[in-house]
């Protein structure tokens, strides 16, 4: 069977679709299992956390990035290396707080929400909340406690997707893994 289109871009796109569709199936299942959006958001965050604590190792192995000197460097690495590597997009880093402990990642387009529309009865669902958990889990494994949340979401009518990240503290001892 010969196909005219470029095989490599096709296969990357298909893997992207596999991921996007699987994520959609997950959110649908969670909405069925839990009564309200708040609960679904919490579960997505928890699952994201579990993924994040493993993803960080994959990231460090593949990117050979060294230790970041400060939170600004961390922000750049997240936006320019991590997001590029895993989601194929590079969000911009903006809206730094005066103390330098909080910033926003602005994504023009969020790959998780391809083909997705939120029905009216799920207006408080943070569809991509898994991402917040992933970032939180990954950073915890490199000794940073952060708070991550969505400030804007294209699925809920905003123009862009904005993730707000706030540095809470440096983690000194080894914490046992998991929010399980």
């Amino acid at each position: 069977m010969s196909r005219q289109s470029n095989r490599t871009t096709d296969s990357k796109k298909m893997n992207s679709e596999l991921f996007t569709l699987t994520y959609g199936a997950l959110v649908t299942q969670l909405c069925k299992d839990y009564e309200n959006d708040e609960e679904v958001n919490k579960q997505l965050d928890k699952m994201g956390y579990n993924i994040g604590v493993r993803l960080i190792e994959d990231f460090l192995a593949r990117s050979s990035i060294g230790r970041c000197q400060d939170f600004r460097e961390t922000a750049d690495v997240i936006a320019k290396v991590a997001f590029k590597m895993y989601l194929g997009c590079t969000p911009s880093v903006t809206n730094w707080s005066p103390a330098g402990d909080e910033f926003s990642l602005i994504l023009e387009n969020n790959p998780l929400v391809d083909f997705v529309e939120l029905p009216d009865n799920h207006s408080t669902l943070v569809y991509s909340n898994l991402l917040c958990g992933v970032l939180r889990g990954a950073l915890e494994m490199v000794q940073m406690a952060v708070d991550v949340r969505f400030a804007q979401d294209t699925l809920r009518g905003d123009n862009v997707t904005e993730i707000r990240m706030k540095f809470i503290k440096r983690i000194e001892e080894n914490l046992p893994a998991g929010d399980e």
Partner: protein
Amino acid sequence: MADESLFDFLHMEIVSHIYKEQQSSKEEMDNKDRAVCVSVLESMGFRVGQGLIERLTRDSPSFKDELDVMKFVCKDFWTKVFRRQVDNLRTNHQGTYVLQDNKFSLLTQLSNGKQYLDQAPKYLAFSCGIVRGALSNLGLDSVVTAEVSVMPSCKFQVVVQKL
């Protein structure tokens, strides 16, 4: 474009979550609980398979017959979803097909020995659903099961349901 490893991580976490939720207050899972987990995973995979096959075959001409459909699943579809082709396709020409993948992509992360053999079916349920969903949108109603005897090789059995 999402990286391939993201699906692997997500899939592992989904399996873990479904089993944890089912177990919740009990000490041990019984067979009924396991069946529920497998069925939930399989139905999630079903919807994903339907979506994937729609995207993949948007511009292709229709298939000549059932065997043609199965060959497409073994080559193009398997390559796009599981990053390789099926190694061996057998059929009794009466609606039963066995697809053998010697290095199934969702099992390669688990160790090759016997240690996790009994855990393997958990990681195959979603994929069975994907195959069943794909076939369903290609016009074939089927029952798809999978078995593993030697990791990471596994066999998917497809039994096409005649109307």
